[in-house]
C-alpha cells in the first residue's frame, strides 16, 4: 500500500520518518472562486493537506455550497437507483481500476441532465413493465378460475343437496345455465380467487352475514400463483431514497425482478339470490382481498372469454419480452459508465464539503482556506495549486485570453520579485493589448503576493495583516478581470499541528498498536519505531516455542506472499485482522523461533543439538579413582535400581562439563525438578528484561526534552528518574548477574538469596548476614542515599526551577511547550536548509523567552502535576518491575500447556504397540494438530499478544510518551471508498 499521503520519495529525513512525526505548517490558500474547484480537485488527488473548518459557527445548512452538495446527493441517489436496477437485472458492474478525476464544472450539468433523463426513462419503463406484468398475472388467474369453475356448476347440479330445496321446475334444464337465469332473475354469481388460508373464515363470514342464502363452492388451485397485487418495480421504494448506500449494499429484494408473492390460491364460486345479498357478498369479497372476476353465465360466453384471454395473454407475453429487452439494453449501457460516475460524484461531493470549510473574503471573489501541510510537501502543494489554476483556466479559455503561470519566484533577498515566465496561450500568436495589460496586472499582483509569501521581510507579520494585504490584491484582480492562479502562504501559528507519521505496509501495523493507545503529540518521540522489534520480542519471550513459532511464521509468510490476492484484501472480520497484522505475525513467529531455541522447546520437547553439558556416567563410582570415591555421594547400579529419583551433583568432578552453548540444557526437559530451575531462570530473566526496557523508556524521554528545548527537564526529571531506577533495580540486576558468575555448586550452600539481600538493602538488619561480597552494606547505603536524594529533586526540582525562572530576569535553558516554533523563514529557505537547521535557527532564544513569560504561570498547578507524576513514577517502578514477571508467568503457562498436551495425546498415541499404533496414531496426530493450533497458537498467542501490548502501553510508554496528539487526516480521494454503494466520505 502506498503511504497515506503524498508521493513516496518526497522529503522527510531518513530517521525522522518514524522517530518523530513530520514538521507541519499552517498554510493559507487563496483560491480564486473560479478555480477553487479545480484546485481542490488537484489537491484531493495528491492528498497533501488537511483542511481546517473556518466556519465552525455556521450550521451545515447555511454554508456556501449547500446547493452543490444537495446536487451531488441527488446524483448519488440516482446512481444508487441505477446500481440497484443493474444489480437486479444481473448485469455485471465493471469496476474500473483507474479512478477518474472529479468532473470539470462544465460537465457536471451535462452529467446531471444525462443521469436524470436516464432515471426518468428507467422509471417509466419499469413502471410499464410492472403494469404489464400485473395484467398478465390477472389474465392467468382469470384463466385458471374459468377452468376450475367450469367443474363447479356441474358439481353443484349433481351433488349439491340445497339445490333440491328450490322449486323443482325442469330437472334436465338445470344443467343449462340459461335455465337458472330463467328460474329467477335474482340468482347471481360471484367468483374469484382467495388466499388459501382465508377460505374458512371467508366461508363462515358469508354464512353469518347472508344467513345461509348463499352457496359457496371452492376448490384448491393445484399450482401456486403469483399475486398480481404484490408485483412492484421497487419494493424498497421508500427505503432507498433516504439511504442509498444501505439499499444498494444489501440486496433487499429477495425475489427475482418484478415477481409477486407466490401463494396457494382457492377458486371460489358464490351463488346467491337477490341484489341485496349480492352487494353484501361483494363487500365481503373486498374485505378478504379476493380477486373477483366476472363469471360467464353462458357456455358460449365462457368460451369466448377463454379465447379472448388466450389471445391477450400471448400478446402480453411478447410485449413484456420486448420491454425487458429494451430495459436490459438501457441498463447495459448505463452499467458501462456507472462506476466512474459514482467515483466522480463522490469526489465532487468531497470537494464541496471542503469548500464549505473555507471562508469567503470580503470581495467574495476569493476563497480562503486554512490547511495543515507537512513542510516536506509545500512544494508539491504549490504545484498542485498551479495545476488546478491552469486546468481551470484552460477549461474556461476564451479566444485571446492568456493563461499564465507564476512558476518561480526569486528569493526575497534579491529584492522585489518578478514574474519569470508568462506563458501565452498558443491560440493567439501575438498577445493582444488586453492580454498584455493583464500581464502587467500580474506583475503587480506578483509583488503583492511575494510580500505576503515572505513574511520574513516584516518581522512581525500577523494574520490580520495578511488578510489586509490580500485585499488590494483582490481588488486588482476584480478590476482587471484577469485569471490569476490560486496561491498560498504559510502563516505563523501557536496552535498544535496534527501528527503525521508516514508509514508503509510494514510499519503500519506497529504504528497502529501505538496509535490505539494514543496518537503521539506533535514531534514527540514515536515508540512505534522501537515497538517493531521489542513487541515481537516480548511476545516471543512469552510464546517461546520453536515449533509453534515456526507454524506462526509460516502462516504469516503465506499471508505476506499472497498479500495482493483480492480475496485476502477484501476478506472479512477475523481474517482481515490477521491480514492487517501479517508483518507483526511474521516477526512474532521469527522471534518465537529464536526464543524457542533458547528455551530449547519444540512442541514442548527439547532438542539435543550440541550434547548435554551434564554427564550421568560421571555420577557412577566406577568412573572415579578409588581415592576420590569416599569424599562424594556416588551411584552404582544397585543405588540406581533402588531409588526411583536421583539428583546429579554438579560438584562431583566431570558431572557438569560446562553450559550448553545455545539456551537451556536439554537434560532439564527430562528432569523432575525442571520447574525449579526454569522458574528461577525465567523470573530473573523477566526482571532483567523489564528493567532494561523501562530504563530505555526513560532514556527516550531525554530525547523529548532535548527536542522541545526543555533542557532543565533532563537534569530535574530524567536523570533523577534514571538514578532512582538504576540505584534500586539496576543494582538488583547486578546482584543477579553477580550471583550467577560467582557462586557455583561447591559454594551453593553459602549462596545468599537475592530476594533476602534485596529486602535487607532497605531494612538494615541488625545482625550481620553473610553478604554477596565484602563492603556490600557500604555500597548499598550509598545507593540508597542516591535514591533518597533523587526523590526530592524529582518532586520539587522542576516546579522550583520554573518558579525561579518566572521570577528572575534571566532565561537560559528556555522552555518550549509543544509546537511553538514561529515561522519567520520563507519556504524557499525551508527547502534549502532542511527541517533540522530551522529548528535550531537563531530566533529560538528570544521566542522561547517570550513564551515562558507570556504563558500563565501557576506554581500550584505545576507543583501538583509534578508531585503526582513523581509519585506515579516511584511507585510505578516497583509495580512495573513486578508487572514484567508476566513474561515468566506466561512462558511458564505456555510451556506447561504444551507439555500437558503432549503427555495426554502424543504419549498415549506413541505407547500403543506397532500393529495398531499406526491406525491410532493418525487420529491422535490430527487431534494434536487441531488442539495445538486452536489452543496453543490461537488462544495462547492471543493472550501473549495482549500481555505484550500491555507491557508496551503501560510499562514502556508510561515513561516518556504523552500521546495527546491528533492524527493528520489529509483531504485525499484515496480515502474515499472505491466500492460501489459504500458509505460516503463525510
Amino acid at each position: 500500500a502506498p503511504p497515506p499521503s503524498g508521493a513516496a520519495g518526497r522529503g522527510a529525513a531518513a530517521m525522522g520518518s518514524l522517530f518523530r512525526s513530520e514538521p507541519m505548517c499552517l498554510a493559507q490558500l487563496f483560491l480564486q472562486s473560479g478555480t477553487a474547484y479545480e484546485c481542490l480537485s488537484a489537491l484531493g488527488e495528491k492528498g497533501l493537506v488537511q483542511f481546517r473548518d473556518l466556519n465552525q459557527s455556521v450550521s451545515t445548512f447555511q454554508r456556501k455550497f449547500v446547493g452543490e452538495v444537495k446536487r451531488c446527493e441527488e446524483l448519488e441517489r440516482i446512481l444508487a437507483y441505477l446500481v440497484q436496477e443493474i444489480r437486479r437485472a444481473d448485469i455485471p458492474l465493471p469496476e474500473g481500476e483507474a479512478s477518474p478525476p472529479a468532473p470539470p464544472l462544465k460537465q457536471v450539468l451535462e452529467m446531471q441532465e444525462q443521469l436524470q433523463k436516464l432515471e426518468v426513462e428507467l422509471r417509466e419503463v419499469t413502471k410499464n413493465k410492472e403494469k404489464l406484468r400485473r395484467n398478465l398475472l390477472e389474465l392467468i388467474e382469470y384463466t385458471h378460475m374459468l377452468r376450475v369453475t367450469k367443474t363447479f356448476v356441474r358439481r353443484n347440479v349433481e351433488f349439491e343437496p340445497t339445490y333440491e330445496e328450490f322449486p323443482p321446475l325442469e330437472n334436465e334444464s338445470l344443467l343449462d345455465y340459461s335455465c337458472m337465469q330463467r328460474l329467477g332473475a335474482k340468482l347471481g354469481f360471484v367468483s374469484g380467487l382467495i388466499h388459501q388460508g382465508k377460505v374458512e373464515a371467508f366461508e363462515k363470514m358469508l354464512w353469518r352475514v347472508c344467513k345461509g342464502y348463499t352457496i359457496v363452492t371452492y376448490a384448491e388451485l393445484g399450482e401456486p400463483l403469483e399475486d398480481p397485487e404484490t408485483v412492484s418495480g421497487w419494493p424498497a421504494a421508500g427505503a432507498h431514497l433516504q439511504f442509498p448506500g444501505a439499499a444498494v449494499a444489501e440486496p433487499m429484494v429477495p425475489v427475482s425482478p418484478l415477481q409477486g408473492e407466490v401463494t396457494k390460491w382457492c377458486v371460489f364460486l358464490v351463488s346467491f339470490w337477490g341484489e341485496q345479498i349480492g352487494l353484501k357478498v361483494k363487500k365481503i369479497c373486498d374485505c378478504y382481498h379476493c380477486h373477483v372476476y366476472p363469471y360467464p353465465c353462458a357456455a358460449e360466453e365462457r368460451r369466448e372469454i377463454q379465447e379472448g384471454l388466450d389471445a391477450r395473454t400471448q400478446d402480453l407475453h411478447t410485449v413484456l419480452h420486448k420491454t425487458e429487452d429494451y430495459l436490459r439494453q438501457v441498463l447495459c449501457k448505463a452499467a458501462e459508465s456507472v462506476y466512474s460516475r459514482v467515483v466522480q460524484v463522490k469526489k465532487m461531493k468531497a470537494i464541496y464539503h471542503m469548500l464549505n470549510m473555507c471562508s469567503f473574503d470580503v470581495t467574495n471573489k476569493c476563497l480562503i482556506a486554512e490547511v495543515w501541510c507537512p513542510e516536506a510537501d509545500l512544494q508539491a502543494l504549490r504545484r498542485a495549486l498551479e495545476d488546478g489554476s491552469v486546468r481551470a483556466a484552460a477549461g474556461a479559455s476564451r479566444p485571446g485570453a492568456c493563461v499564465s503561470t507564476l512558476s518561480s519566484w526569486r528569493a526575497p533577498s534579491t529584492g522585489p520579485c518578478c514574474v519569470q515566465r508568462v506563458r501565452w496561450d498558443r491560440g493567439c500568436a501575438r498577445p493582444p493589448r488586453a492580454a498584455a495589460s493583464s500581464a502587467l496586472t500580474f506583475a503587480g499582483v506578483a509583488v503583492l503576493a511575494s510580500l505576503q509569501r515572505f513574511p520574513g521581510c516584516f518581522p512581525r507579520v500577523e494574520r490580520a495583516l495578511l488578510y489586509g494585504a490580500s485585499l488590494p490584491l483582490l481588488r486588482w484582480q476584480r478590476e482587471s478581470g484577469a485569471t490569476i492562479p490560486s496561491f498560498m502562504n504559510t502563516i505563523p501559528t501557536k496552535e498544535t499541528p496534527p501528527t503525521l507519521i508516514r508509514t508503509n505496509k510494514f510499519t503500519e501495523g506497529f504504528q497502529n498498536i501505538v496509535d490505539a493507545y494514543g496518537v503521539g503529540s506533535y514531534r514527540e518521540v514515536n515508540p512505534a519505531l522501537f515497538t517493531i522489534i521489542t513487541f515481537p520480542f516480548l511476545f516471543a519471550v512469552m510464546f517461546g516455542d520453536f515449533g509453534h513459532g515456526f507454524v506462526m511464521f509460516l502462516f504469516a509468510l503465506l499471508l505476506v506472499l499472497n498479500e495482493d490476492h483480492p480475496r485476502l484484501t477484501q476478506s472479512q472480520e477475523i481474517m482481515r485482522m490477521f491480514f492487517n497484522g501479517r508483518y507483526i505475525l511474521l516477526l512474532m513467529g521469527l522471534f518465537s523461533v529464536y526464543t524457542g531455541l533458547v528455551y530449547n522447546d519444540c512442541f514442548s520437547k527439547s532438542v539435543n543439538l550440541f550434547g548435554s553439558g551434564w554427564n550421568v556416567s560421571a555420577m557412577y563410582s566406577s568412573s572415579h579413582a578409588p581415592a576420590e570415591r569416599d569424599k562424594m555421594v556416588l551411584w552404582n547400579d544397585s543405588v540406581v535400581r533402588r531409588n526411583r529419583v536421583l539428583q546429579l551433583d554438579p560438584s562431583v568432578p566431570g558431572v557438569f562439563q560446562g553450559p550448553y552453548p545455545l539456551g537451556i540444557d536439554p537434560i532439564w526437559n527430562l528432569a523432575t525438578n525442571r520447574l525449579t530451575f526454569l522458574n528461577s531462570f525465567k523470573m530473573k530473566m523477566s526482571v532483567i528484561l523489564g528493567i532494561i526496557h523501562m530504563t530505555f523508556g526513560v532514556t527516550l524521554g531525554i530525547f523529548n526534552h532535548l527536542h522541545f528545548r526543555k533542557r532543565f527537564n533532563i537534569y530535574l526529571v530524567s536523570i533523577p528518574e534514571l538514578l532512582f531506577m538504576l540505584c534500586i533495580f539496576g543494582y538488583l540486576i547486578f546482584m543477579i548477574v553477580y550471583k550467577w558468575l560467582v557462586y557455583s555448586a561447591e559454594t551453593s550452600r553459602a549462596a545468599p538469596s537475592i530476594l533476602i539481600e534485596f529486602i535487607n538493602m532497605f531494612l538494615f538488619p541488625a545482625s550481620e548476614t553473610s553478604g554477596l561480597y565484602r563492603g556490600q552494606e557500604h555500597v548499598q547505603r550509598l545507593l540508597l542515599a542516591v535514591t533518597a536524594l533523587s526523590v526530592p529533586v524529582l518532586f520539587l526540582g522542576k516546579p522550583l526551577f520554573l518558579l525561579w525562572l518566572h521570577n528572575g530576569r534571566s532565561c537560559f535553558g528556555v522552555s518550549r511547550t509543544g509546537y511553538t516554533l514561529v515561522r519567520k523563514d520563507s519556504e524557499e529557505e525551508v527547502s534549502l536548509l532542511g527541517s533540522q537547521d530551522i529548528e535550531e535557527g537563531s530566533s529560538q532564544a528570544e521566542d522561547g523567552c517570550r513564551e515562558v513569560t507570556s504563558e500563565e504561570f501557576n506554581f500550584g498547578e505545576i507543583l501538583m502535576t509534578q508531585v503526582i507524576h513523581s509519585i506515579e513514577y516511584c511507585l510505578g517502578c516497583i509495580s512495573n518491575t513486578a508487572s514484567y514477571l508476566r513474561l515468566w508467568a506466561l512462558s511458564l503457562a505456555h510451556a506447561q500447556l504444551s507439555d500437558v498436551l503432549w503427555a495426554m495425546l502424543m504419549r498415549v498415541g506413541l505407547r500403543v504397540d506397532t500393529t495398531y499404533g499406526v491406525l491410532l496414531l493418525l487420529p491422535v496426530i490430527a487431534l494434536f494438530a487441531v488442539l495445538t493450533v486452536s489452543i496453543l497458537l490461537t488462544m495462547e498467542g492471543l493472550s501473549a499478544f495482549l500481555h505484550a501490548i500491555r507491557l508496551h502501553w503501560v510499562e514502556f510508554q508510561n515513561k516518556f510518551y504523552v500521546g495527546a496528539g491528533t492524527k493528520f487526516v489529509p483531504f485525499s480521494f484515496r480515502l474515499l471508498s472505491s466500492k460501489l454503494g459504500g458509505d460516503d466520505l463525510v
Partner: protein
Amino acid sequence: MPGAHHPPWTRAPRSICYWPLHPGLGFRRLAMTAHSFALPVIIFTTFWGLIGIAGPWFVPKGPNRGVIVTMLVATAVCCYLFWLIAILAQLNPLFGPQLKNETIWYVRFLWE
C-alpha cells in the same frame, strides 16, 4: 567465601581437567559434550555484534534506512541479551537435574 572464587572465565573448562581419567571415552566425550564457556561467548558475541554493529553500515540508502538500522540494532540487543541471560544462568549450576532412574539409564546409554 568472598574472594575465594576465581571468575569463571579464568578457569579452564572442567572437562579438560578430568577426561584424562578415562582415556578410552574421553576423546569422544570431549568432542560431544565438553563445552567451554569462551567459545560460544565469542561466537555469539561476534554474530550479534556483526548484525547489530556492522550490519547498519550495509543498509542501502533510502527513506526506510533509519527504520532498518534501528531494527537491526534492536534485534541484536534483544537476542544477544536473551541468549546471554540463558547461558549465564547455567554457567555455575547450584544444583543438578533430578532424574528418574529410567531416565538415567536412557541418558547413560543413548547420550553418552
